[in-house]
């Protein structure tokens, strides 16, 4: 075990993993029951990447999340209630019901940014954030998550070039879950070794097992040190897998892009199972301690659901507020009604 990962930290990490998992499952369940509108994109199976990376950096470093980065909220102690309230479209949601799933905004409070849901859209934005940090002389670094699908998007390439050009303090984390919706990474991506992309721009790319929190933690710790010293960007490729479909509607679509065996093979490496097992095997903590964490999480989830259910819906007229920071009469225009 990495020297920084003491018992307390290890249990905390388990709590974060488990809370994320339970939150995702709860959301899917609530979606099925009709409490949450629209499709959901849970990161089931991919929790380790986010948890590993976020534990290895400071709490005030800037994070651009992918749409499967729900674990980040658990790591930064966000109340699950306000996320659920947002997904219920309620007033107490973190975006007051305007953003919904995939757009949680906790940037001011927690430096977590998920507002934008464009494919890899946060990559150029966070290149800008990193540039801003450099211009303003801030010590914070930026970490931005995107998927293997996003790697084919033009602005990811532009951002990597720009980040190296200005030697920006940014870590690009690719959550390579092997499928861009249904398209295999081997089909869409022209390099076998994904780290070659970074090398083509003259900076380091590191591949890491994305199901192993400790490995991710170690790699990130080392990278952060270099990035903070001003040696420019780093690209981490974390190989992981999503256990669920691309989105919740997938189960009715009858898709055949991957085999059941493949899913089961990966499920054996589920961080929610392997991490506590490792802790127990290495004698870091006891089974009972793990169980008590689980109980705590269940309670938290129940409270959060209650909170979200009891929160009020926004008033319809709110729909026209919040578009502009400097307001003028007559905008936003709304037509005749």
């Amino acid at each position, binding site marked *: 075990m990495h020297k920084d990962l003491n018992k307390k930290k290890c249990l905390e990490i388990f709590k974060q993993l488990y809370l994320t998992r339970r939150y995702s499952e709860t959301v899917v369940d609530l979606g099925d029951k009709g409490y949450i509108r629209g499709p959901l994109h849970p990161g089931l199976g991919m929790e380790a990447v986010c948890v590993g990376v976020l534990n290895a950096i400071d709490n005030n470093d800037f994070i651009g999340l992918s749409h499967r980065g729900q674990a980040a909220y658990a790591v930064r102690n966000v109340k699950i209630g306000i996320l659920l309230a947002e997904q219920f479209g309620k007033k107490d949601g973190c975006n007051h019901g305007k953003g919904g799933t995939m757009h949680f905004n906790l*940037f001011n409070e927690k430096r977590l940014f998920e507002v*934008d849901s464009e494919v890899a859209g946060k990559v150029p*934005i966070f290149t*800008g954030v990193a540039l801003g940090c450099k211009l303003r002389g801030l010590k914070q670094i930026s970490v931005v998550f995107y998927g293997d699908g996003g790697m084919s998007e033009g602005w990811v390439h532009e951002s990597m*070039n720009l980040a190296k050009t200005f030697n920006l303090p940014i870590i690009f984390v690719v959550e390579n879950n092997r499928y861009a919706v249904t398209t295999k990474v081997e089909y869409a991506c022209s390099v076998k070794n994904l780290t070659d992309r970074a090398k083509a721009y003259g900076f380091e790319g590191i591949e890491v097992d994305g199901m192993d929190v400790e490995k991710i933690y170690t790699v990130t710790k080392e990278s952060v040190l270099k990035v903070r010293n001003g040696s420019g960007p780093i690209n981490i490729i974390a190989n992981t897998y999503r256990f669920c479909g691309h989105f919740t509607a997938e189960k009715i679509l009858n898709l055949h892009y991957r085999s059941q065996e493949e899913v089961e093979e990966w499920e054996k490496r589920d961080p929610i199972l392997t991490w506590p097992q490792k802790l127990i095997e290495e004698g870091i903590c006891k089974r009972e301690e793990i169980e008590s964490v689980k109980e705590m999480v269940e309670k938290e989830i129940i409270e959060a659901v209650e909170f979200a259910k009891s929160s009020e819906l926004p008033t319809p007229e709110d729909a026209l507020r919040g578009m502009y920071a400097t307001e003028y009469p007559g905008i936003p225009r709304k037509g005749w009604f």
Partner: protein
Amino acid sequence: MRELSCIQAAYEGLEKEISRDQNVYLIKKENIFNKKFFEVLNNDILKNDKVISTPKSEATIISSATGLALIGLRPVVELNQIEDIFLAFSALIDQAAKLRYISGGKLMFPITYLCVENNVYNDNDGQHSDNPYSFLIHGGMKVVIPSCACDAKGLLVSAIRDNDPVAVFLPTRVLAEKGEVPEEQYTIPLGKAEIKKTGSDITVVATGHCVNIAIDIARKLEAEEGISVEVFDPRTLLPFDKETLEKSISKTGKVVIIDDSPISCGFASMVSSILMEEYYEYLKRPVRRITREDIPIPFSKSLKKYVLPNSEKLENAIRSII
């Protein structure tokens, strides 16, 4: 008062704003003009370390300006080819214009896009010849298009101080036009139109360089035939100053709109639809639109004139409804 060209006025405003506010940065692409551009303007903005030169990657540059704004800076992004708006359409329409709203009104994106040399009069064949502001209006972004040097400075400064993304278009045709510009820093509020010439028979709504066309025609018609033309320059296309237009239209009851962007779903259509919906009772005659046709700009001179709005078309339109 001293006279400056429109572009000099704009960059003077920008330079002073950069020195005044430590958060204002100029992000510009490296390009062919770089070395001499500011020498020509007699402006030493480049000596300022708050000017960031970037490689040509428009989508990322515009999107990263959103990132700069996210942590409290007020970037001014110079777009010197109008293609940039198309290449970075996602970053403009889907990110900058939307993110504040999606965040529940919590985040703020004070970004200014300064679009210089943006139309057909810049000797580039048909390329870089678009005036894509109607796209941005449809996307909900504030759009400013000054028609003279004095407006250029004041509106640009307002745009920089505005807390939302604002696109400022400096039409090529007016870049070199000189006008009186106060030395001190001043602002002209967004969303306020100006009556560039008063009149009582007909209102001409004109934007950008078309304002000058309209004023010339107005003078000519007044002198030669006693037709009194009022020239209405909205200056800000979004927010649009309906109230001033109402005043003008209640007086004249007749409107011609002249605008240099394609006609379908363009700015002229928006003004016309406002008139048809809200000020219908004042209207005595059809609302005429003189705009660019829905056709790209051809190279051939003989074809160009069919595509672009010009004074002859405006004059005909005025006569047709007087």
